[in-house]
C-alpha cells in the first residue's frame, strides 16, 4: 500500500495514497466543518465549508474532494478560512427561506448548528426570498424546497444506498432545485421505495416525516448510513 506523508495544521500525517484531505485531517484529529459530506456517500464538494489552504496553490480547495498528496502543507483553520466559512453559511441563509422559528428540524438541523459553529450572529447578505414549492404528495414524507441547501445528500443516498435514483438537481445557478423522478410530484414517482433514507440524510428541514411538527425532526442516525454503499456490494453493478 502506497503511503503519502503530508502536514496538516502542523501535524505530520501519513495516510494511504488516494485518501481525501478531509479523511487525512480526521486522521490528524482535526474535524472540518461539512454540510454536504456524509460518511459513506461519494463526496461532491458542494457546500464549500471544508475549503482548505494548500501551500503553493493560489486557490482554496474542498478537502472532501481533494486527494492528499505527498509533501503537501495544508492549513484548515486560518483566520481567512474562518471568514470564508462564516460567509458561506450567511449565504446559505440569505439564499433560501430558512426560518428556524417554526422549522421541523430546529434543534436537529445541521445548517442551524453550523451557523453557531462559525459564529454567525446575523447575515450580512440581503435575504433573497426565492419563491419555492412544498411537495406533500408522498404519503409519508414531504419536501419543503424553501429549506433545501442543494447539498445533494438525498440524491446520493437514494442512488448509492437505496439504488432507486429518485432525486436529482435540476436547472442552473439560483434556479437550481431538487426534483423527484422526471420532475414529478414525489408521490407519483414509482421508483421511490419509501425507505426514508433521503429524509435521514437531509441536513435541514427540507425532507421530513409528515408526522413531525416544529422541532420534532430527529438528527440523522449515522449508523444507518454507515452501511456499505450499494455499488460496493458484491454482485451489484455500479449505478
Amino acid at each position, binding site marked *: 500500500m502506497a503511503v503519502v506523508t503530508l502536514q496538516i495544521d502542523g501535524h505530520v500525517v501519513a495516510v494511504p495514497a488516494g485518501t481525501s484531505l478531509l479523511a487525512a485531517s480526521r486522521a490528524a484529529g482535526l474535524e472540518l466543518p461539512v454540510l454536504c459530506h456524509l460518511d459513506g456517500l461519494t463526496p461532491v464538494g458542494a457546500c464549500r465549508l471544508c475549503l482548505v489552504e494548500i501551500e503553493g496553490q493560489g486557490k482554496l480547495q474542498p478537502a472532501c474532494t481533494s486527494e492528499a498528496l505527498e509533501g503537501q502543507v495544508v492549513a484548515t483553520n486560518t483566520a481567512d478560512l474562518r471568514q470564508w466559512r462564516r460567509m458561506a453559511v450567511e449565504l446559505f*441563509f440569505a439564499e433560501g*427561506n430558512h*426560518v*428556524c*422559528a*417554526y*422549522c421541523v428540524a*430546529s*434543534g436537529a438541523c445541521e445548517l*442551524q*448548528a453550523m*451557523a*453557531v459553529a462559525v*459564529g*454567525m*450572529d*446575523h*447575515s450580512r447578505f*440581503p*435575504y433573497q*426570498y426565492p*419563491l419555492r414549492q412544498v411537495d406533500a404528495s408522498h404519503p409519508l414524507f414531504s419536501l419543503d424546497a424553501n429549506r433545501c441547501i442543494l447539498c445533494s445528500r438525498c440524491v446520493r443516498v437514494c442512488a448509492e444506498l437505496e439504488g432507486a435514483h429518485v432525486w436529482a438537481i435540476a436547472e442552473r445557478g439560483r434556479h437550481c432545485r431538487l426534483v423527484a423522478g422526471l420532475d414529478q410530484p414525489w408521490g407519483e414517482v414509482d421508483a421511490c421505495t419509501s425507505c426514508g433514507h433521503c429524509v435521514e440524510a437531509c441536513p435541514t428541514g427540507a425532507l421530513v416525516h409528515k408526522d413531525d411538527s416544529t*422541532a420534532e425532526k430527529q438528527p440523522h442516525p449515522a449508523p444507518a448510513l454507515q452501511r456499505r454503499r450499494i455499488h460496493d456490494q458484491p454482485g451489484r453493478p455500479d449505478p
Partner: protein
Amino acid sequence: MSLAPPPAALPAGPPPKPRLRLATVWLAGCSGCHMSFLDLDELLFVLAERVELVYSPVASDIKTYPEDVDICLVEGAVANTANLELALQLRARTALVISFGDCAVTANVPGLRNLLNRDGRGGAAAVLQRGYVELADGSGRLPHAPDLVPELLDQVLPLHAVIAVDLYLPGCPPSAERIAATLLPLLEGQRPLQAGAAMLRFG
C-alpha cells in the same frame, strides 16, 4: 457587657455606579422577546436597581423615545414607516443598539410577506391586496389612513439593514438566560461573549 458604640458615620464605600439608561423597543414582532425579557424573573429586581428603564412597551408609558439612552433592546423587524422612523430615532439617541430576537436579526416570520414581493414588483400593495381583498368575503377593501395607520414598507427588513447594530441577540425568542448573559456583562461595562449554541442558535 457593653454594646459597641454606633459608628459615627457609615464607612465610605465606592460611590454608587450611575444607573444605565435602558430602553426596549417593539417593532414588527409578536412581543415574545419582551415576554422572555419579563421571564428574567428575580433578575428584574437586580436590573431595577442597576438601570433606569426610560422607554419600553412593557414597563413604561412614555410615548417619545428619549435622548441619551445607553442600551436599547430592539425587538421586531422593520415593516412599516413607523418602525423605520423609530429605528432611525433610537439609533441617533442610543449608545448601544441590540438586535433583540430573530425578527430584528433576520426579519424572521414578519419577513415572509416578502415572498409576495417578486423582483421588486408587488411590495406592500400585493400584501394588502392578498390580505384585505383576495381573502375577504366579497366585502374587502384596501385600508388607507396614512395619518392613523403607518404605511407598510415594500420589503420587511432586518434592523441592521436600516441602522447600524452593535450587538445581536438571536432566538425566537431569546431565552431569559440568553438575555441575562447579554445584559449582565453590559452592566459591568463588558462586552458579552456571543458564542456557542446557548447564545447564538436561531429559532
